[in-house]
């Protein structure tokens, strides 16, 4: 019956320990990153589809493109607005990376933030680092 103090102290220590990650990281939340566009991407105004759509669905588009190109030999994409695009991630100036040639500032920014590690670059060759 005399262990009340010990128990309460124990509980407090346990509680502090339990919530450690929360208060340790308090106020340190990194701001949502804003991917940077290259001048070329800015000039184009819109990607293959509208920005909001690309933000949410780019991985689906890449997946469809990949199967289309590799398995069906389809290489031309006509967007919802009727514009024509070369379906390629990294080949040539009219590929995804032809415009978004700043992988570190564009792809990696959000992918790092959300702990996503796509394995594209195990095989596809990264565009050379942007000259400033």
């Amino acid at each position, binding site marked *: 019956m005399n262990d009340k103090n010990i128990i309460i102290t124990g509980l407090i220590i346990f509680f502090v320990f339990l919530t450690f990650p929360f208060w340790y990281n308090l106020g340190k939340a990194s701001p949502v990153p804003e991917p940077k566009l290259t001048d070329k991407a800015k000039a184009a105004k819109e990607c293959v*589809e509208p920005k909001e759509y690309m933000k949410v669905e780019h991985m689906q588009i890449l997946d*469809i493109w*990949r199967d*289309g*190109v*590799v*398995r*069906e*030999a*389809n*290489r*031309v*994409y*006509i*967007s*919802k*607005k*009727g514009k024509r695009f070369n*379906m390629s991630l*990294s*080949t*040539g100036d009219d590929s995804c990376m032809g415009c978004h040639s700043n992988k570190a500032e564009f792809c990696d920014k959000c992918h790092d933030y959300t702990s996503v590690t796509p*394995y594209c670059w*195990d*095989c*596809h*060759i990264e565009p050379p680092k942007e000259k400033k």
Partner: protein
Amino acid sequence: MENSRRSFLKLAGISAIGLGTKPVLDAFASSEAHGEKHGPEIFPNQEALTAKRWAMVIDTRKFESEADLDPIIEACNKIHNVPKFKEKRHEIDWIWVDEFKHVFTDLEHEFVDDRLKHLPFLVLCNHCENPACVRACPTKATFQREDGIVLMDFHRCIGCRFCMAACPYGSRSFNFRDPRPFIKEENKAFPTRMKGVVEKCNFCAERLAVGKMPACVEASNGAIVVGDLHDPDSEVRELLKNNYTIRRKTHLGAGPAIYYIV
């Protein structure tokens, strides 16, 4: 009492029909709405080279020594980022050279003529009509296109190597190591492979798709010709008509699409 029960049942029946048809009507309504909007579409390139059934004819009379074949192999290796390993057991080959007795095992005999005995032969994936590799692949990473080209979708390969065991021609190589450091000059327009996937000749599918002939054909000074086997007027058919050709291990029934004029 009687009356109200009957009317209840009627009402219930009618509502059941109504509820049952709603999803169907919804589906109709939404498909109509879709039809109005212009959805994205995907097409092949217009300038792509196409065939009903691709085939290759190699005129071995135009070759004398390995020196004649090196530029052809080099052209393929360079374009496809094929690594060059020092150790034999790591070797990756898309197109390479071998002797008559290894290439045409079923035609070989003790007294085969001198020219053939010493002639280097170009070997590559035969893009078989009945490809054993495709049947063996558990993930459909290896597949056959309608035009006969047997391709690999490297994204899907899990490195089980069933295809290598199945291929009767040894046309496939496995990446035991990361190939990147062993590629002298990277072709930025074509991906490399990674450790743990199989690779082989792809009939330059990426070049056909943009209207270019395969790299080996371009580098061969006319010794290698590709074309449509099902088109009686094609160049390959013309060559097959006028020359005696052999194929590799035909008794296996794989139906190789690489023909050799000897």
